[in-house]
Structures are given as C-alpha cells and as structure tokens.
C-alpha cells in the first residue's frame, strides 16, 4: 500500500453543542405559541423576558463551548456533537450534527452576543409595538436558524439554516405587513434569495456527484463510505482487521498517517487518534460526503506531495467482502477515483463550476452584484432587524460559507478571481450609490453591500482570515451604526408624529409630488435633511455613532482599519488571482475613500449642519437606557477588537507575532496559504507595507475632510452643493436613482416574463378565441343550413350531442363512486402497471 499522509482533523465529542441553537428555538416556540396570551396576561415584559432569557442561555453555552475549544491544542480544535442520525440512504449520510471549530466558534459568539444586545435594544425600540411577541418570536427564530447555519456539520444542516434565515428575513422585513411597500420588500428579498439558493443547492449536488455519489449506490462500488472513525482501542483493532481484509464489510478506505495524539483531558471523549496510537494508520473516509469535516479530510490527503483526489491519481482501496451471498471481491483492489479537478461538465472544470455555484449562493445571501438589489429595500423592516440580520449576521452567511469551503475554493483560481472581482466591483458600485442617499438607513444599507464586497475581496484573494476578520469588525461597527440610526429615527419619530398630527389638524395633507432629490418629505423620520444639529439633543447616540464611523472609515484607532487594511494589502500582494492584484487593490482603495466620505456625510448631516429648531428641541430626545447601553457596549468593542485581534503582523511582531485572529483561524484555513505574487522582495519590505497603511489612513482622512468641509456647516456650503447638483444633474440623478438597476431588471428580466405572459394572452385572444369564434360561425351556418333543409335532422343532431354528453358524463361520473374498494383496486392496478413497466422497459 502506498504511503499517503494527511492531517486528520481530530474531533472531540462535546454533547452540549445542540443546546446553543435549541434555546432560541424554544424561546421562539414559546413566544410563537403562547406569546399573545402571555403578553395580554403579564404585559410586554413576558415575551422579551423569554426571548432574552433564551439568548442569554444560548450565549452562555456558546461561551462555555468556546472556552472548551480554547483549552484544546490548536490542531485538535473541533468539538463535535452528533445529535441523531437523520438520513442514511446509500452513500448519502446526513446526521443532525453540530461542529464548533475556530471559525464557527467565532461566528457563534458574534451571533449570540450581538444578538443578545439587539434583543435588549429591541425592548426599547419596539416598546410601542402591539404585536411585540411576534417580533421576538421571529427574532429568536432567526437566531436559531443562523446558529444552525453556522454550527451545522454538513451542507444539509447549513442549508436548513440558510433557508431558515431567508424565511425569517422575509418575515421581519415585512413585519409591518399592512403597508404594501414593506410586504413587497419582503417578497423581493425572498424571491431574489431563491436565485442564490438555486446556486447553493446546485453546488452541493455537483460536489456530491463529483466525489462519486449517485443514486442507488450499490455495495462494492467505489465511493462507499467508512463512517465511524475509531474511538476506542477495540475499534482501532477492529478497523485494522478490516483493512487487512480479515473479516469485513464492503468498504473503501484510504489509509493515512494519524497525527501525534495526546491523551484527551477535559472529560471529553477522544474521537480519533486515541492515546497510545500515535503514528498509527487511520482510515480516512473517501467518497461522496456532505460533511465539511470529512470533505476537508479527504481533500487534504496528500500523495507524493499531490492530492490524489484532486490531481487525478489512484488510491489503493481495500475492497473486501465476507458475505456468502456475494462473490468474493479481490482483497486488494486498485479502485480508480476520478479526480475532482479532472472532471468536467460541458468542458468546464467541475471544481470551477462547483465554486461558482456556491458563489452564486453567496451573492444572493450576501447581497453582491448582481443580486444585491433586495438589501436596500430590506430596510423597510424594523431597525433592530436591519442591524441584526441585514448587517451583522445573515448577510455575512455567504462570506462564512466561502471561508468554510476554503479548501475547495483554493482548487480553482478562476473561481477565486471571480469572487474577488465581484467583491471589488460591488464595494465600489455600492459605495458610489451611498454617496448621494438622503435616507439614513439607505446610506447604511449601501455601505453594508459595499463592506460585504470588501469581505469577498478578502476571501477571494485567499486571505480568508482577513475576510473573516472584516466580517467580525463589520458586525460590530455596522450593528452600532444601525442601532445608532435606529436611536435617531426613534427620536425623530416623535417629531414627525407631531408634525403629522399637526398637519391633519389643519386639514392639509402633505404634498407627495415633491422631487425627493431636492426636497425632503417633512414627515419622513429617516430623511437626514429633516435632522441636523441633533448632537446636543442625543449626545450619547452621537458619540457612539462617531466611534462606529471611525471604525468603518478606517482610522487606525478603531476596528475597521485593521481588517480593511489587511484585506487591501493582501489583495495587492496576492498572486493567486488571475487578475493583477493591484487592480483589485485600487478599486478597493477608491471604495474605501468613498466609504469614509459618505459615512461622515451621514454623521455631519445628522448631528451637525445646522442649529436645531425649536420643534426639534421640543420633540427629539435621547433614547432610553436599553438603547444607549447597547450602543455603548458595541462602540467599546469597536475600539477594542481591532487592535487586540488583528494587529498587523508587521508591528505586531514586536510583541506577539502574528495577529491573534490569524493564528486562531489557522486550523481552518491551513490548506490555503496565500501565494505572494512573483515572490518579489520589495513586497516583503516593512517599509512598503507601512506605506500602504499610511495611504489607507490618508484616503480615510481625505474622505472625512471633504465630508466635514461640505456638511459640517450647511449654511455656508448649501449654495455650493446646490450649484454642483444642478451642474452635474444628469450623473447625480443617475447615481441617486441607484444607477436605475431596479429599472433595468424591470425592463429586462421582469419585462421578459411579462412579455411572455402577453404572448400567451395574445394567443388566447387571437388563436383560441378565433377558433372558438370560427366554430361559432360554422355552427351558425350549419344550423341555418339545416333549418333550411330539414328541421328533424337538426333536432336529431342536437339530441345526439346532448345524449352523447349525458352518456360520457355518466361514464365519467362512475369513476367517482365514493367506494373505497374501487379506489383501492385502482391503486393496485396502478402499482401493477408501474412495476410491470419497470420490469419490462
């Protein structure tokens, strides 16, 4: 047997993982089933106590699990919890299993901790909502689905979560479903996401097929799977016996060297590499699988420095059998596995196709070009939802998925290039739209799309840890920004409510024919032109908003700088994409400049710009404590997380070497080492990296400076702004209208479907109706002709038609006897026919 080596992922059994998603599910179920009664009986604290309690419990278990993960050796950091076997059909095996590795552990912490914060925030924000319980039910359900997505050990479980978050997103965008606009936005999100889901599912199917899976896998065929890896000494011995062919089942095994093993402490069972078996050979399952871990293990097997499954080599496969009924197969059979990389579909490399399909899934969920259109509309939902779902967690699912499948994506440079390029283009495209928006939530929505683009640049160029790091920092500062904007809207709402009341009192409705480009609707609490000068009225909100703006713009004392700069640097210096790295870098840098500008524009328009009117002073107040405390917590994290987790290696080397997060994610991303372009020495120079860093800071400062000079004092600059607007009217309105992408879609895809419908309508009116009309004319003629010749013949014909209708009706009626016996006979006859067809054809 040839020598194959691989680092098998050691897993540790940890039976409490399922509690993390279970608590939110329970909370959701209680609120969903009993919430209304509880709320009527005990008031509004009942639903939110249950929901927040569930979140706190989930967060506690997540933290405990994470602590257990920390105590393990870096190469063994995977906690596994198989709850129950779900589907075992042929080679297709799915368990309800959860896995916590460094990546999913980080995500679980983000989801549960930020989720808890946003639950607390919602108690303040949604205080006036009548169906309070429904909101918390959906919110908990969302957290459950998201945890399922993140913790799931296989693509199937991930897909459950994937669909679950889509559903919750739909439910929460349309939370105030009585307004048609909100319901439509929810539906739009749902429909656009279906396109992405198609990509995900197709990718998973292709991958399963590419690994040798298929329908009706028969025993003995290649691709059969060895399931349970040895746990105890006896099992190891039994497996040894199997592999040497003594007495076995029909199985296919590739042997690999096991890593050095240590005795499992911490009260957890060792799943692989038990004590005293260091250096032994272990079986790595080979064949179709949907489990991320098993997929990673088999893609990581190396054979003379190459990966056999990928490079199309052969593997020695032990195929043995001892059942008397089946002919004895040869003891050692060389089974040919088709390499994943050598398979093609219509001439396209399969790996590329798989990655592309998964990326289509990611563009749908993470709002990238061309499927980003749903996210800005999704702002119709309540602001905490925008913060939790449409900024911090759900929209990052695509990034998470690609980071999770990193071992697959590195096999296809083409797919990685597409990921990076789409990410860069989205980052720039959305940033430009964000420049001229007046709705504060729309600005944040486009900034989310743009920042997600940055993450995709990161994972696209192979800097997985940087992409994931930006995911983390973005979750913090964008949640803080959204919640801050929510706090402002909450305050403004009192003002607009007052205005509305006033307007109705005096009997004039508001003028809806204004051009939204020029004049703000005075009743819109989200329009930044209605704000201005709120700094003194909402001091806490302002401060936290400022900190988050620092973070997103990339000032070196807040989180976003570290992650964004790392992504841009890696984009510049990478050599794995097919497009030159500096191009991606340049697009990203321009997007970063725009980002700094529009974020500070929103900041100054909201909190400065003009002195607040008496009306503002009277009605707008700082939000309740449940809101401001959460804002402060997030703002504090924005300041701390960046330097702690991601200090650049360059400076970090002075005291702790690699960035903490990179080291932490190492076990997950170890097969995807970044290749530097051309190995050119000057790129390794610290001075170059420092120069790039200074450049990043420079563009951030530039964006801030322009924003401040234009918007800090509107009275001074308003005339200039208006002059520019009228001068560049064409381009301004194009960008303001979001490049009219929605209109283009409406004109192409939607229009195409409509035309199709029109075509059928035309056929209906002209062909079918024509035929009917012709029949009518003919029968009229015949009737006339007949009446002219012989009345009896006409009567006879009419009677014959009537009789035949009655006859056939009676015949048909007999089918519907209402007698079960006859129905059953029908079923039996059907079965016999089907089986006969199956036998004969």
């Amino acid at each position, binding site marked *: 047997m040839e020598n194959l080596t691989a680092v098998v992922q050691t897993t540790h059994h940890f039976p409490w993982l399922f509690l993390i998603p279970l608590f939110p599910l329970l909370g959701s179920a209680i609120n969903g089933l009993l919430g209304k009664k509880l709320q009527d009986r005990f008031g509004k604290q009942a639903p939110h106590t249950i929901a927040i309690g569930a979140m706190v419990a989930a967060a506690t278990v997540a933290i405990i699990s994470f602590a257990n993960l920390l105590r393990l050796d870096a190469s063994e950091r995977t906690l596994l919890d198989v709850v129950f076997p779900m589907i075992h059909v042929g080679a297709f095996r799915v368990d309800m299993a959860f896995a916590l590795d460094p990546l999913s552990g980080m995500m679980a912490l983000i989801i549960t901790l930020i989720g808890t914060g946003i639950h607390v925030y919602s108690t303040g924000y949604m205080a006036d909502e009548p169906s309070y319980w429904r909101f918390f039910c959906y919110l908990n359900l969302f957290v459950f689905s998201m945890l399922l997505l993140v913790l799931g050990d296989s693509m199937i479980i991930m897909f459950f979560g994937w669909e679950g978050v889509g559903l919750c997103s739909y439910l929460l965008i349309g939370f105030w479903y009585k307004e048609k606009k909100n319901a439509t936005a929810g539906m739009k999100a749902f429909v656009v996401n279906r396109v992405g889901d198609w990509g995900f599912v197709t990718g998973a199917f292709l991958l399963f097929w590419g690994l040798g899976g298929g329908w009706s896998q028969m025993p003995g065929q290649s691709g059969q799977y060895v399931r349970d890896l040895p746990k105890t000494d006896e099992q190891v011995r039994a497996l040894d016996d199997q592999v040497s062919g003594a007495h076995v089942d029909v199985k296919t095994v590739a042997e690999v060297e096991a890593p050095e093993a240590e005795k499992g402490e911490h009260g957890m069972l060792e799943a692989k590499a038990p004590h005293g078996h260091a250096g032994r050979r272990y079986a790595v399952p080979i064949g179709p699988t949907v489990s991320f871990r098993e997929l990673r293990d088999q893609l990581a097997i190396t054979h003379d420095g190459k990966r056999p499954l990928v490079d199309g080599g052969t593997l020695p496969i032990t195929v043995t059998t001892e059942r008397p009924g089946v002919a004895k197969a040869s003891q050692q059979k060389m089974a040919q596995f088709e390499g994943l990389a050598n398979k093609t579909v219509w001439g396209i490399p399969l790996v590329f196709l798989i990655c592309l399909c998964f990326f289509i899934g990611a563009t749908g969920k993470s709002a990238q070009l061309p499927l980003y259109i749903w996210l800005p509309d999704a702002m119709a939902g309540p602001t905490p939802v925008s913060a939790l779902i449409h900024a911090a967690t759900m929209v990052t699912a695509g990034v998470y998925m690609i980071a999770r499948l990193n071992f697959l994506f590195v096999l296809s440079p083409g797919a990685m290039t597409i990921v990076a390029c789409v990410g860069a283009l989205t980052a720039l495209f959305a940033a430009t739209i964000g420049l001229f928006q007046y709705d504060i939530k729309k600005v944040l929505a486009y900034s989310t799309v743009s920042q997600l683009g940055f993450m995709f640049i990161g994972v696209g160029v192979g800097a997985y840890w940087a992409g994931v790091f930006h995911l983390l920092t973005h979750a913090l500062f964008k949640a803080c920004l959204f919640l801050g904007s929510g706090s402002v809207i909450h305050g403004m709402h009192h003002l607009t409510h007052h205005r509305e009341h006033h307007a109705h009192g005096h009997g004039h409705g508001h003028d809806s024919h204004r051009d939204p480009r020029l004049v703000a609707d005075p009743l819109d609490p989200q329009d930044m032109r209605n704000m201005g000068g709120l700094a003194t009225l909402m001091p806490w909100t302002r401060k936290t908003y400022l900190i988050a703006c620092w973070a997103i713009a990339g000032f070196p004392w807040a989180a976003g700088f570290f992650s964004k700069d790392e992504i841009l640097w890696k984009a510049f210096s990478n050599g794995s994409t097919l497009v030159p790295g500096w191009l991606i870098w340049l697009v990203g840098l321009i997007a970063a400049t725009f980002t700094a500008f529009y974020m500070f524009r929103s900041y100054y328009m909201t909190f400065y710009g003009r002195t607040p009117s008496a009306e503002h002073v009277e009605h707008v107040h700082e939000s309740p404590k449940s809101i401001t405390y959460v804002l402060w917590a997030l703002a504090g994290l924005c300041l701390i997380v960046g330097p702690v987790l991601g200090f650049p290696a360059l400076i970090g080397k002075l005291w702790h070497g690699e960035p903490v997060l990179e080291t932490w994610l190492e076990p997950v991303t170890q097969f995807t080492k970044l290749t530097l372009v051309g190995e050119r020495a000057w790129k390794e120079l610290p001075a170059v990296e420092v120069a790039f860093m200074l450049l990043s800071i420079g563009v951030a400062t530039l964006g801030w400076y322009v924003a401040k000079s234009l918007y800090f004092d509107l009275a001074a600059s308003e005339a200039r702004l208006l002059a520019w607007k009228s001068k560049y009217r064409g381009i301004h309105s194009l960008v303001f209208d979001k490049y009219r992408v929605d209109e283009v879609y409406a004109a192409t895809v939607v229009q195409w479907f409509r035309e199709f419908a029109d075509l059928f309508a035309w056929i209906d009116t002209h062909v079918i109706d024509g035929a009917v009309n012709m029949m009518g004319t003919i029968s009229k003629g015949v009737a006339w002709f007949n009446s002219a010749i012989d009345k009896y013949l006409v009567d006879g014909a009419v009677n014959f038609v009537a009789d035949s209708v009655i006859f056939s009706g009676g015949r048909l009626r007999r089918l519907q006897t209402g007698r079960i016996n006859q129905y059953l006979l029908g079923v*039996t006859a059907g079965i016999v026919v089907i089986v006969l067809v199956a036998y004969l054809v």
Partner: protein
Amino acid sequence: MDLSTLITPGTLFFFMLAAVTLVSALGVALAPNILYSAFSLLGTLGGVAGLYLLLGADFVGIVQVLVYVGGILVLILFAVLLTNKLGELKLNNLSTGLMVGAPAAVALLALIVKGVTTTAWPLTEEATAPTTARLGDSFLREHLLPFELVSLVLLMALVGAMVIARRAAKEEGRSVPEESHDRLVG
C-alpha cells in the same frame, strides 16, 4: 435424498404455522359471516406470532399475542358487536368486486413472487436465539427517539379515539341510550 433427514422439527413447524396463517387469512377474506372473519383473524395473528418465534424474534412474537390478540382483536370484536343488530350477524356480504379484486390481488402476488425469487439476497443467517435483550438495548440506545415518538403517537391516538367517539355521542344527545337499547334487544 432422504426425506426424514430433511424434515426437521423447524421445517415442520414452519409449514404448520404457514398453513394455519394462510387458511385463516383466507377465512378472513372469504367467510360469509363477519364473526367468523373476526375469529379467523385470531388464527392468522397467532400463526404470525408463531413464525416470529421461529425467526428468533421472541419479544415481537409475545407482543404480537398481547397487543394484537389481546387488544386489537377484542377491539374489533367489540366493534362488530356494537355495529350489528344481534339478529342479523350474517350481514357481511361480499361486494361484487370479487371478480375484479381477486385477479388484481393475484396479479400483485405474482409480481411480488417474481421479485422475491429473482433477487439474489445477500444472506447472513444467524443462529436462532432469543433477541429480547438486544432489542431492549436498541430501543433505549439507537432507536430511543422513534421509541418515544411512537409512545406519543399512541397517546394521541387514544385521546383522538376518545374525542371522535364522544363527539358522536354528544351530537346524538338524548337518543343514544334508547338507540343502543333498541339495538341490543332488537
């Protein structure tokens, strides 16, 4: 070929039980009186229980006797007696469908027989030994969840049966006692 060596007690038992099972099953299908049908069912269920024992499934066999014969069959007898006036117990006419039903059943039988005889089953005969302990083990380990679910289903079925039967009684209101009195006497 010596027949006496081939005919072991096991073989003998099998054929006896098979005969009992099939003959009484035919009785269920064809008996002119529904009471005969019900009692024939006893034979079938008992025969199948015996076959379970032959297959080493002692626990299943005993459950078959307890639940089927002791529970379900009695329930069926109750239903027969409650829904027929005692005078006309012969009310169990075959429908005209026998001419169609019998060929259909035979066709399906032929298909199954063809399938059974042409498939090469991967056989691993195991010694006939009591399996109750292993069965109990598997109920409390790998099949724990289905086991609990089944108990839940059973509970729901009981409650459901009660609800259905009671609602009917309520709708009838006061006329129920008179009716049932009539039925018993009449």
